[in-house]
Structures are given as structure tokens and as C-alpha cells.
């Protein structure tokens, strides 16, 4: 993984010192809350319902054991002993005191981490495929470019006060595991005309109250010119994005107002005039950064291990975990392990300090000291020997981290909701817990197969409900919490925004509604290989609506649905 050099260390230390000064000035009254707010936001500090929340950047989701241990230390010392992994591969601490934040930033700087630009109207932490560097279907490791983009976007002098927040995701694989089409900019590494790699660039994806799937703006940008190209996109957005209405300020609104062709024309005109040579990355700097991500030299191992095979045949729970949570690695004899933080009944993505330390120890002992955070709010050990899988599984059981549900219905993405967030209309966590309990039988979840269920507590859509195969959105309906259900969304290459299926449900009716949707799917799917989203797209809304609301003519309340 990337290691800070003296320059990066100095940079982060300087920023931590600067923020300490800003906190002092805030407490002294030299800064008003209004003036302080963007400064604290750019250092990851939000004011929530009950306390400050500090969001720490985990660049493209890559952690070392030492870093994860430090996060556990922060959880114990300055929070309530746990943290929350987010869909943008970051970690949040929900019970932070303002005056402690400078010390926390110092503790982070010690382990080459920071909270810079995890919020605010700037370029946020760049996210990437959690299986980067180890996936079977990868063209090129996206971490190199994610690191380049991290450096390029950090305290960018021109783009720190954008109209609105700006999110970039990158993948280098055939399958999109980073939801790039729901980002302001999505980058896909592709082979160019002469075999050289470059980028397919998508722009204007997003969720919130006006969800859009990103559109292709450039078929191929040579890698040597990526930064100047992105700078041109950013500049057009910075100058022309709306600033009069916070809900219309994201780049997706500008792209759709101008149309992708006109937006592309403006970007290309800007690209032609800006000082590209001073912006683009020199090849020697690319090589320097790429060297940190050189493929690990792994000792070849047999693909099958006799002790693992023996355990598999005698221990059905272990066998299930292997099926659902363990994926093939690009090097034979190794595997990718998904560690689920989605035990039914628990808060999705929450991790205790003990769990973090246990995963750090596993990574150290078996996983080449490497951990990833996934879009699905889980942790990943990207490189472990197949022969060690049983030992890892047994260690995970001790921490209740052995849940076998990767990509299954209980692998729920949920935002913090009304339990923490002052934007929310409704609670998300209890809904996630009730649904997970309803589908807690792992055998049944496995029969249902891949199914992404996402829950947001309000239209800001932090729980990515639009991108869920089943999406649940908390709404306020005459003062009571209601939940609107969408079907057919997907965050992958087949990205789509889900369809609102009908009138919303009260909280206690949601698990039954999900049950009916799932039963309808199971009864109508062609066979087990037809996943929920594929079946839904074939079948359309009608059978699901009928299951939920009865035969078509009796559905009077439907017209209300669009107004909820």
C-alpha cells in the first residue's frame, strides 16, 4: 500500500496544526459558527443530533493493521468504543467532543491518516473497488490512480468551495464494485486503441432527491492526461453549477440542464485552454506511486487444501461461509475474505474496538497486513492463503463476525437515520434490524440469492436506497414515520434507479412487505440463477404490486405514492 514520505507526513501534520488553531479561534469567539462550519466540515467534523460526528478518510478503503488498531484506540478513548464504516469506505465516530478533535487528528497523522475533505463542498475521499489488486477480472489496479487523485484533490486551491460536495469513484475491473455510475465522476480503467490503459469517464451520477445514473462524457482519456481533463470538468462545474439552491447544486443538475453533449463541449473547450503541463502527472511521479502497489510476490500454493476440504464436508456453517463470503484471488491458492459487519439485529457497518483489533490481528497474521473497507460497509481481507481459511473463520466466530451473508438480503446498507442524523425523517437502523431478523435464517437467505437491500432515512439517500435492488426510503407522512419501497435499482454496471412500487408503509408493516416481495420473486423466478434484479426487470412491477396491494383495480391510494 501507499506509504507516506516526508512530504505527506509534513502535509498532514501541518493541516492538523492548522485545525487546532481554528478550533482555538472558534472557542475564543474569533470565528463565528458560520465561518467555522466549512473549516470543520473540511476536516470531517459534523454537528449531529446529539454530538459531533467525526468522519475519517480511509483513502480508497485501504487500511493497514496498524491503522485499524489506531481507529480502535480512537473509538475507545474518544468515542463509546465503536465506529461505523460507511458506503464511501470511511469510518465515522458519532460521539466526539469538539475540543478532542485536534488530538484525534494528531493520532491519525501518526498512522498516515486524516479527516481532510470527508465532508464540505469539496472533492471527497476517492473510493475504489475493494478487491483492487487481487480481483480476477481486473485490467489494472485502480489504487494507483485513486492515490494520485487523493493527492491531486487534497486542498485543491481552486476546488475547495464548490457549489456542492463532489464524489469520485474508480474501478479497474470488469465488474463495477464501486458504484461508479452513482458518483459525480465515475472512472473506469479501460484499454485504449493501442493497448495503453486510460479512462472511460462518466459524469453526473448521484442519488438524493433527483437520482441520476452517470452519463459517459469521454470514451477514452489517456492516463497521462487524466488530471487536466478532470480539472476541466471541475472548472466548468465550479463556474456554472448552481449556487442558489442547495438541492440543485450537484453536477448532475448542471449536466442534465445543459445536456451531456453541451457539457462535454464546454469541458473540452476548457481542457484546450488550461495549463495542462503544470497539472498532468509526470510519468516518473506515476511510477513512484505505482511502485507502492506493485503486485505482491506470493508463494504459489495448491488451489485446494485437504484440511479445508475436510472441514467443509463436515461443517455446513463453514461451508456456507466459504460459499457466500470467500472469493477467488487472482493468485491460485489464495482467497479474498469478506468479513460481514451485518449480523442480523446489529447496526449495519458498526464495529466495536475489539472487533477492529481482532481483524487487525487476522490481517497481520494471515493477510499480509492488509484490510479493505467495502462499499457494502464490510471489511475485506484481500489476500489470505486458502489453507488459513478455517483458522480465520474460527477467529471471526469469537467476534461474531462470521455471518455468511455477503451480497445477500441481510447484507443491508443503511444510513444512521433518525437515531443520529438531524436530516432524517425516519429511523433506518431499527428497520434494517427488523428485516435482517426476518431473514436471519442463512439457509433461506442463500436460497434467495444475491439481493441488495438499501435503506435511507431521508431523501438525501445516504443509504443508497435508489441503488438497491430493494430500496427503502424513510418519509414523514403527517408526522409519522413511513417507508416507501423501490424495486429494481442497481449500483453495478446495470445501474438503474429503482421504481417506486406504491404507497408507503408504516415501520411495523415493512418486514411483511419485504417478505411478500421476496416470496413473489421466489415463486416467479425462472430458476435459482435468475437473481432478484434480473427477474424484476423481466417481470415488471405488476406481480409485486399485486402481492403488496392486491389486484390492480382496488389500488386507490396509488396516486398518492408520487407525492409521499
Amino acid at each position: 500500500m501507499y506509504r507516506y514520505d516526508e512530504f505527506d507526513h509534513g502535509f498532514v501534520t501541518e493541516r492538523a496544526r492548522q485545525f487546532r488553531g481554528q478550533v482555538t479561534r472558534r472557542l475564543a469567539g474569533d470565528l463565528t459558527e458560520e465561518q467555522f462550519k466549512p473549516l470543520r466540515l473540511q476536516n470531517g467534523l459534523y454537528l449531529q443530533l446529539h454530538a459531533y460526528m467525526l468522519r475519517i478518510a480511509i483513502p480508497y478503503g485501504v487500511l493497514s493493521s496498524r491503522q485499524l488498531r489506531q481507529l480502535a484506540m480512537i473509538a475507545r478513548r474518544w468515542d463509546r468504543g465503536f465506529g461505523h464504516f460507511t458506503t464511501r469506505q470511511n469510518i465515522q465516530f458519532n460521539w466526539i467532543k469538539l475540543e478532542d478533535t485536534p488530538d484525534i487528528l494528531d493520532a491519525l497523522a501518526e498512522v498516515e491518516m486524516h479527516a481532510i475533505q470527508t465532508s464540505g463542498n469539496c472533492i471527497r475521499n476517492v473510493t475504489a473497488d475493494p478487491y483492487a489488486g487481487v480481483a480476477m477480472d481486473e485490467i489494472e489496479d485502480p489504487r494507483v490512480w485513486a492515490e494520485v487523485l487523493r493527492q491531486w484533490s487534497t486542498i485543491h486551491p481552486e476546488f475547495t468551495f464548490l457549489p456542492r460536495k463532489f464524489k469520485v469513484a474508480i474501478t479497474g475491473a470488469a465488474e463495477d464494485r464501486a458504484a461508479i455510475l452513482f458518483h459525480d465522476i465515475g472512472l473506469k480503467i479501460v484499454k485504449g486503441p493501442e493497448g495503453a490503459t486510460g479512462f472511460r469517464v462518466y459524469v453526473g451520477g448521484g442519488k438524493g432527491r433527483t437520482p441520476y445514473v452517470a452519463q459517459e462524457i469521454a470514451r477514452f482519456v489517456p492516463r497521462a492526461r487524466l488530471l487536466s481533463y478532470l480539472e476541466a470538468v471541475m472548472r466548468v462545474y465550479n463556474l456554472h453549477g448552481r449556487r442558489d439552491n442547495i438541492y440543485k447544486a450537484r453536477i448532475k443538475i448542471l449536466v442534465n440542464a445543459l445536456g451531456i453533449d453541451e457539457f462535454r463541449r464546454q469541458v473540452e473547450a476548457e481542457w484546450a485552454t488550461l495549463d495542462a503541463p503544470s497539472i498532468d502527472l509526470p510519468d516518473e511521479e506515476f511510477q513512484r506511486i505505482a511502485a507502492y502497489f506493485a503486485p505482491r510476490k506470493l508463494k504459489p500454493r495448491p488451489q485446494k487444501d485437504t484440511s479445508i476440504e475436510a472441514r467443509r464436508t463436515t461443517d455446513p456453517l463453514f461451508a456456507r461461509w466459504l460459499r457466500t463470503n470467500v472469493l477467488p484471488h487472482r493468485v491460485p491458492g489464495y482467497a479474498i475474505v469478506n468479513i460481514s459487519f451485518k449480523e442480523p439485529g446489529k447496526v449495519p457497518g458498526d464495529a466495536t474496538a475489539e472487533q477492529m483489533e481482532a481483524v487487525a490481528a487476522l490481517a497481520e497474521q494471515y493477510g499480509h497486513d492488509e484490510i479493505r473497507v467495502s462499499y457494502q460497509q464490510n471489511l475485506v481481507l484481500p489476500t489470505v492463503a486458502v489453507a488459513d481459511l478455517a483458522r480465520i473463520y474460527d477467529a471471526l466466530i469469537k467476534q461474531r463476525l462470521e455471518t455468511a451473508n455477503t451480497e445477500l438480503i441481510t447484507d443491508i446498507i443503511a444510513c444512521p437515520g433518525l437515531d443520529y442524523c438531524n436530516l432524517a425523517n425516519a429511523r433506518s437502523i431499527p428497520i434494517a434490524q427488523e428485516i435482517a431478523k426476518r431473514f436471519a435464517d442463512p439457509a433461506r437467505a442463500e436460497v434467495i440469492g444475491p439481493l441488495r437491500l438499501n435503506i435511507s432515512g431521508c431523501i438525501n439517500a445516504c443509504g443508497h436506497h435508489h441503488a438497491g435492488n430493494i430500496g427503502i426510503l424513510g418519509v414523514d407522512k403527517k408526522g409519522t414515520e413511513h417507508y416507501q419501497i423501490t424495486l429494481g435499482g442497481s449500483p453495478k454496471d446495470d445501474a438503474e434507479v429503482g421504481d417506486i412500487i406504491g404507497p408507503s408503509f408504516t415501520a411495523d408493516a415493512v418486514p411483511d412487505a419485504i417478505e411478500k416481495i421476496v416470496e413473489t420473486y421466489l415463486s416467479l423466478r425462472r430458476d435459482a440463477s435468475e437473481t432478484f434484479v434480473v427477474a424484476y426487470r423481466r417481470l415488471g412491477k405488476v406481480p409485486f404490486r399485486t402481492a403488496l396491494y392486491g389486484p390492480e383495480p382496488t389500488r386507490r391510494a396509488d396516486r398518492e405514492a408520487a407525492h409521499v
Partner: protein
Amino acid sequence: MSEPAPLFSPLKPATTEPRLWTGTSFVPDPWHTIADAEPFPIGGQAIVSLTRWRAEQPALAALGAPVGVVVQSSEALDFDTDDVNRLAVIALVFPKFTDGRAYSTARRLRESGYAGEIRATGDVLLDQLPLMLRAGFTTFEIVNAATIHALEVAPLPAVSRVYQSGVETAVRGWRSRRAGIEATRQ
């Protein structure tokens, strides 16, 4: 959760008479901004609106006196027709410090080869000064009392490490970054 009250309430008034800062010190402002209806002074040194510059460009240029223009954040300079190189100062307005359009305008001006004074005016605050310097601003019209006070008692902390090219850096961007590391190693 309500906003935390500061431990001490501010003693200083929030805003004061504008002061002109040059990146290192406060200086008297030789310029004054005039309304569109006001006659242009004989000796020049006046800053006019972009609308007026566009309307009276030949006449103002014929005076041979220094002219400046103030550009609102919603206005866009046209490098083909606005003849920016005849302007001694271009003042870019920050209506709110969170409105970042002027950063792009300043960089565009520098990229176009404009070498005159680029002035930040409006809601210009201490914490944004390093960004403005890097974006190409050279002078700063400041009314925020806390910012003026901070700059009077201590110089602006130097930003010694940056990841991108900025117009103020002698050596640019990635190269300056590597140069910085080489310097540390020696």
C-alpha cells in the same frame, strides 16, 4: 444539538473599514471603486463595474489613466473582447466566502497571461487566504475584524507543502512536491 456557545464572546466588531493586504503587509489602497453614474476621475486609479468597462472601454482606454474592473461572481470575463490586459487591477468579488467561483476566474486570468493585480474583495477571511494566494490573487480587501487582527499580530502561516500546481509557486505542482522532498533529504 444546539451550536456550542464560545467560551468568550467576541470583543471586536465583526467588520470594520476595509484594509488592503498584499500577502505580507497592509498598505494604503491607491484605488477607489466608483459607481457607474460617477464621472471617471482625471488621474484614474478607479475601479469600475464590468458593465461600464464594456460600455465605455474605448473612452476609458483613451484617457490613458489606470483603470480597474470589479467582476461579480456571477459575471464571466470574455478574454477575447474584454481586453483584460489593459486593466491594472481586476477585483473579483466573493459575495460569500463559500462562493468559490472567483478562484476559477483568477486561475483563468493567470493562465491567459494576465500579469496585473488580482484583488479579492467581499467576504475575504483568514482561512481562505492561502487558497486565494495559490489561485493567483495578489491583493486582498478585508473587512473582517478578526482576520485583520490576526494578520496584524502574526504573518499568515506559510503553506509549505502543496499537492497541486498553483500560480504562486515558482516551481510547479508535482515537480515542486518532489523538489520539496529532495530538499528534506539533503
